[in-house]
């Protein structure tokens, strides 16, 4: 019987050696991914996955091993989405292995919104009950009870605040522009993964052209990812959809500081595009809010592209 603690947790976990070959596969991973732990031992971690997930894992594991820092990616296997955290195991600053933790993503914003709404009623009920208790008993008779009830009400207030923030994020109304470090390569991969199934269904070949990582960018990566995804989805909604879609990210060296260039390029199924893709107004507005310029062009031989140029996003 195994004595490894990770064998008793419900989330899939892999442990790799310094060369990122599997040295431990927990039963949850075996169950979720249909892999036999004994057969998997010694195999490169990325090879335990298939298709786009394999590519994403290969890049993320390599990134975690080379940079000695945590890498994250999102993958989809067997119809289930996972958030993956890849952390190096360090001893005296030297990488001696890597741990991969996969947590299942909850499907869809609607489900999250519905859960948020369902939270509202019990929060209100608990709040009312605590206030009633405070007024009717705790407040007058017992200072200890009163202190505990007041603590509970404060905690409940905090919970309500977090729930409200969750709502704001889900409807895209989080603090107007968040500034956070983000990796544009990871962002593009994440968008590609989120639409890969739809693209495959429509017979659209989806290509990715971005380095393993692009460090040092700061800005509202969440809004950027949402806008990029909307750009891709808008193209997939056209009948007929393009034969091929390429998502790309790279760093530009500009005169007044480095800029980020993202692009969505298309190849037609037949004939040629006569004009650039007309981006949805909401996409244009949200990218303008980030300080980005969007520009499209079409060429009869090369297809068409829309570029998003975000100046000054690099902090290097």
């Amino acid at each position, binding site marked *: 019987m195994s004595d490894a603690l990770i064998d008793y947790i419900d989330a899939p976990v892999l442990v790799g050696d310094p060369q990122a070959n599997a040295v431990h596969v927990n039963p949850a991973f075996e169950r979720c991914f249909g892999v036999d732990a004994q057969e998997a031992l010694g195999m490169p971690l990325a090879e335990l996955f298939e298709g786009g997930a394999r*590519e994403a894992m290969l890049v993320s594991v390599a990134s975690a091993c080379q940079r000695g820092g945590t890498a994250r990616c999102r993958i989809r296997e067997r119809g289930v989405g996972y958030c993956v955290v890849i952390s190096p195991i360090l001893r005296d600053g030297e990488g001696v292995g890597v741990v991969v933790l996969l947590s299942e993503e909850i499907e869809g914003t609607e489900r999250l919104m519905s859960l948020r709404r369902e939270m509202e009623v019990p929060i209100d009920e608990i709040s009312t009950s605590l206030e009633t208790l405070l007024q009717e008993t705790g407040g007058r008779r017992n200072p200890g009870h009163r202190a505990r009830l007041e603590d509970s009400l404060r905690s409940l207030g905090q919970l309500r605040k977090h729930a409200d923030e969750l709502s704001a994020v889900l409807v895209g109304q989080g603090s107007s522009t968040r500034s956070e470090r983000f990796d544009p390569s990871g962002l593009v991969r994440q968008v590609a993964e989120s639409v890969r199934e739809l693209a495959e269904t429509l017979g659209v070949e989806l290509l990715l052209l971005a380095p393993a990582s692009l460090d040092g960018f700061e800005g509202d990566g969440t809004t950027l990812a949402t806008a990029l995804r909307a750009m891709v989805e808008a193209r997939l909604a056209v009948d007929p959809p393009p034969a091929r879609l390429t998502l790309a990210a790279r760093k530009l060296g500009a005169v007044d500081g480095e800029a980020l*260039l993202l692009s969505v390029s298309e190849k037609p199924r037949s004939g040629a595009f006569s004009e650039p893709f007309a981006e949805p107004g909401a996409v244009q507005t949200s990218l*303008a809010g980030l300080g980005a*310029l969007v520009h499209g*062009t079409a060429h009869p031989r090369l297809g068409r592209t829309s570029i998003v140029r975000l100046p000054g996003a690099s902090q290097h």
Partner: protein
Amino acid sequence: MGGSSNRSVAQWLSEGLTLFADGDREAAAECWRRVLSVEPTHPGARDYLRAIGDPAGLEGDGVEHHTQLELRDEAVELLSGGLVDEAYELMTTTGTEQTSDLETLALLELLRMHLHEDVIQRLGSSASVPVIEMAPEDLMKFNLPAGAGFLISRIDGHTPVSDLVAVSGMDPFETMHTLGRLLEAGIVGVAE
């Protein structure tokens, strides 16, 4: 925009972005020019104006911008004759890829995508395995650039293209473009 002369630099920048998003480039440029009238060296306003080719943003590099536009036109000419690789070479060896001009950047992006896809098609797929087709002594006859030499050193006859791109640590486009050239030169082939 009348009656709004008291706006701050940030507001003019933001207004310009909104107008640009609405497709009104001239009105956007007017907003960014107003920023320069207050802060003549404002990097953000200069950058936006340069991106849309407005003369107010090109102060000091107007001639260079003009040359870049000529090179872009020349590249489009080459493209109309089917010379994609030559058009890309022209735009990259002359430093045009360093431009902020949106149309030039978009054309360059299309060229990159086309060349990238072309190499994948020639390879069969990104799962194909490249192999070296020449003996080491024959390779020495080529004056290979450092990037190509490094890439050749990573080709072991087992690693598929997608993994090769990931493990090479090179820019993925440059890796594929170099691979394309090695295929053309007959130095690299595809495993059966």
